[in-house]
Each structure stands twice: as structure tokens, then as C-alpha cells.
């Protein structure tokens, strides 16, 4: 590996309480996570001079407003804004904070994701039931009845499965591996063992997706404090050094010759991050990726270069991403079996693994890839972190 200095580091990290019940408004969960993350960093509120906010695409600015800084009691910030890049924002916030710290615009930036999709009287199906704009400006989703992320992703998964001759066993293997990790994670919501048979017997939501192909929404918040590498080295927690960052936004082309379901911006995001860190996919010890649906793990394994194109189904079926496998993926259970907090899910597990504080589920963590995406895998952001200041 080349000798590289980190761009910045995560000095503080915390989460609010997580629940399948309504436990308070989005801003309140955000404030709880912010205050805990500042304490975790060994800092005072007055040390914080930056705030980056990531609200859910299905929430409004009323839910998580700019004046969150007042609710959190932060003053005299030199950086404050909302990062609006859908599900990729969880990682994009850290990237933007790292750039701001490098440029000297801020010294300690709190980045927060918060969401409370579960409110009395509204099912999560209703909360996430909007049509996704797959067809660009046309809007033909609604009249055909293609509503919700489940349908949009199922349509992509079918094409991917057809192309690579995959069956529901390959999707089921992803769900089973994630559940195995979740059983080792005290934060995970799904605590019952899951078999391939359980997966296949769960009802279809949108064929080819069964219930257990879909992630598990919760109410909760995740916050990190991004500082310089030197500052993080002085903190009370193991520093999470950021060595590489990348983004990839490929655009959607709805015509022959372009397979939006198989070639995604993750490839570009990964190439950027690997080049910046001076490493390659073979050097990465584990990956924490956005897994709203089982298919998403398979495709990202290929696009981030961990498995050859078309090979991810067999790789996961062979148990390689599960506990004891050669390449651990979503070691907290991911969004499928852990908790769905959009980009906050891979971010949280990426931090815990890099710190080495993941307890029973801790894996080798010299280099960790954390990746998040938004839309139907349209907007990608990733980072490579390490407990080592130099690689």
C-alpha cells in the first residue's frame, strides 16, 4: 500500500434510541444523537463549529429544519446546511465535513441523520409508498401502479437475476447472512434466526421480493463528529481515519444498450475512493453497504470490485459474506435485519467496526468500506476508513 495521510477523521459517534414505535419527533431524535456524539467525542457544545443535516427524502424541512442548530443549542457555527442527496447523504455529509475541515472552514462538524417514518396511524408502507421517478421526466410509474421503492427495486432485481441466472435462493442467502450478523448485534431489531425456508415462505410484497428481501424501517438518529486526524487522535475514542472518498452518479438511460439495473454509479464511487486511499478492493477487510433490499448487496459487491460481475449470487450463497466467511458484509445485520436508517445504517456500523468496538461481531478492520446510495441506486457515495493514521 502507498503511504497516505488521512483526509480527516471521525472523532465522535452516537445514536439516539431506536424503535419501531413513535418515540418522539425527528428533530428530537436528532438532538439526542448530536448531544451523545459530542459527549462521545470528549468535546463540549462550544467546540462544535459545523452542522450538516441529512433528512429523509420522505420527510419535510419542517421535520428536520436548518434551525436544528437552535434546538441542539449550537452557536456561532461557521458551517451549517442540509445535505440533500437522498440515501447517499449519510456518507456525503462525512465527505463534505472532511473537505470543510481540510479547507479550514470548520474544526469539528456534527453530521446527523434522523428519521421518524413510524407515526401513529401511518404504516411504513404508506410512508414509503410514493412512486420513484424511474422514467425521468415522464412520470409513467403512477398510472401503471408501480408504487414504492419495493416495486422499483424488484423490477431492477428481476433483470439482474435474469442476466446472471439467479434464483430466489441467491436473494434468500443475502437475507440469511444479514440475519446471522444481526443475532450478534445488540442494536439490531430482528433477533429471530432466519432460514432459507423462512425467507421463501414469507409472503411476496412485490414478486420477486418476499417480505424478507425488504429492509426494516425504524425511528432513530445517527450522528458523528468529524475533525482533523490530529484532533481525533487526541480524543477519548479510537479515531476513525478517512483515507478515501468517492461518489458516482451515472444518470439513467431508458433505452437499449444501457442496463441501469446492472451498471450503477457505485463503480465510479469505488474507483475514486480506492485511488484516493491508494488501495484496491482486495485490500478491504469488510464492507458496510446500503441494503434496502437483498439484491442491492449483490450488485454492490460486484460494482465495488469485491466479486467479478455476475459472481455475487454464488459468493453469498457460499456464505462468504456471513459470519466466518472470507469477506464480511453488513456485520450489524444491515438495513435488512438491523435497522433501516438510510445512509445512517452503513455509517454507524462502519464507525463501530473501524473503531474495533463491534463486540461479538467484530471482524478484521484495518480497512473498511462504507457505502450509501440514493434513488434506485442512482446516487452513490463511499468512503474508506481505518484505525491507522497512515496506510
Amino acid at each position: 500500500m502507498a503511504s497516505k495521510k488521512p483526509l480527516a477523521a471521525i472523532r465522535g459517534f452516537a445514536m439516539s434510541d431506536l424503535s419501531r414505535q413513535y418515540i418522539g419527533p425527528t428533530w428530537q431524535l436528532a438532538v439526542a444523537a448530536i448531544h451523545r456524539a459530542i459527549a462521545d467525542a470528549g468535546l463540549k457544545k462550544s467546540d462544535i463549529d459545523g452542522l450538516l443535516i441529512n433528512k429523509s427524502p420522505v420527510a419535510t424541512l419542517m421535520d428536520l429544519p436548518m434551525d436544528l442548530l437552535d434546538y441542539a443549542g449550537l452557536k456561532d457555527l461557521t458551517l451549517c446546511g442540509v445535505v440533500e442527496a437522498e440515501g447517499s447523504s449519510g456518507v456525503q455529509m462525512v465527505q463534505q465535513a472532511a473537505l470543510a475541515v481540510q479547507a479550514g472552514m470548520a474544526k469539528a462538524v456534527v453530521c446527523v441523520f434522523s428519521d421518524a417514518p413510524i407515526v401513529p396511524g401511518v404504516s411504513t408502507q404508506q410512508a414509503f409508498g410514493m412512486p420513484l421517478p424511474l422514467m425521468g421526466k415522464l412520470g409513467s410509474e403512477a398510472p401503471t401502479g408501480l408504487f414504492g421503492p419495493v416495486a422499483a427495486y424488484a423490477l431492477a432485481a428481476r433483470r439482474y437475476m435474469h442476466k446472471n441466472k439467479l434464483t430466489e435462493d441467491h436473494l434468500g442467502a443475502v437475507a440469511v447472512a444479514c440475519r446471522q450478523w444481526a443475532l450478534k448485534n445488540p442494536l439490531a431489531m430482528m433477533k429471530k434466526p432466519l432460514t432459507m425456508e423462512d425467507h421463501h415462505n414469507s409472503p411476496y410484497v412485490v414478486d420477486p421480493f418476499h417480505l424478507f428481501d425488504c429492509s426494516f424501517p425504524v425511528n432513530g438518529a445517527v450522528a458523528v463528529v468529524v475533525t482533523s486526524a490530529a484532533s481525533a487522535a487526541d480524543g477519548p475514542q479510537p479515531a476513525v481515519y478517512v483515507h478515501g472518498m468517492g461518489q458516482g452518479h451515472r444518470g439513467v438511460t431508458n433505452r437499449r444498450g444501457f442496463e441501469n439495473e446492472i451498471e450503477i454509479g457505485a463503480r465510479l464511487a469505488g474507483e475514486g475512493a480506492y485511488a484516493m486511499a491508494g488501495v484496491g478492493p482486495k485490500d478491504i477487510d469488510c464492507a458496510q453497504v446500503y441494503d434496502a433490499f437483498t439484491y442491492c448487496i449483490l450488485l454492490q459487491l460486484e460494482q465495488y470490485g469485491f466479486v467479478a460481475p455476475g459472481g455475487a449470487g454464488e459468493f453469498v450463497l457460499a456464505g462468504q459474506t456471513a459470519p466466518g466467511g472470507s469477506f464480511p458484509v453488513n456485520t450489524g445485520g444491515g438495513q435488512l435485519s438491523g435497522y433501516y436508517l438510510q445512509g445512517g445504517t452503513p455509517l454507524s456500523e462502519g464507525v463501530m467496526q473501524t473503531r474495533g468496538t463491534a463486540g461479538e461481531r467484530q471482524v478484521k478492520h484495518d480497512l473498511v468500506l462504507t457505502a450509501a446510495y440514493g434513488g434506485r441506486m442512482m446516487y452513490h457515495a463511499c468512503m474508506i476508513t481505518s484505525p491507522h493514521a497512515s496506510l
Partner: protein
Amino acid sequence: MYDITRIQGWPMPVLNELNRPHFDAMAEGKVLVQHCPDCATWLAPGAFLCENCGSTGVQWRQASGRGEIYSYVVMHRTFDPAFEAMVPYNVCLIELEEGPRLLANVVGVANADLTIGSPVQATFESVGEGLPLLKFKPA
């Protein structure tokens, strides 16, 4: 972007200059997509410019209505009351023989018999309270 409204009881995109010709043509039984006169690329409707050559001179043009199933799903839950009686219903991504892809329901075939690559032909059916909509049927 577009907003969703309800026409004749059916969920529809709010029409604008980018998508109106495509939906208006359904009443005349035509599949209207876009075409670039500069590089001869057929484009999926809703294009502001030609994504191949960048030309802003894209034109509306009638497609043959022939195509094949590129991918499909079967909705086992409904997210809108208009579709409640149809569950389980299919939604397919159709690749027209000219190249552009369109989302549509395929009629006249059991959901279990849908396959990627099967040939389909445009057909028009009234939905809701009489709104003509583009569908496809086995060719």
C-alpha cells in the same frame, strides 16, 4: 420532476411540455416517443435533450408499438386504491423495437407466464372512469 394527480379517478402525472404528447397520444391509440433528428437516436419520452449527442432539437415521433418484455414485477400489495381490485397485477418494463423503454401493464397473459424477452404489442384500454391508457399484450 413531476407531481401526481388523479384523472378520471386514476393516478396520473401532472402533464407538462415534457410528457403531455406521450399521454395525449394514448387517446388516439398511438405510442409517441422521441427521436433526435441530428443523430437519429430514438429516446424514451420525457427527454429535454438528446442524451446521445446533446441536441435540444428532439422531436416527437410515433413508434411501431412492437417490443419485448425487458423486466417485470407482480405487485402483491397495493399502494393506491385505484389498483385494489387488480392485486396481484403486473408492471412491466417494455423495450420497444426502436430502443426506448416504457413502463406498462401487460394484459392477456397470466402473471405466472410473463417472461423476459417475450414479444409484445401495444394495445389501449380504458381504466378508471374512461381514461385511455397504453398497455401491451402478447404479440
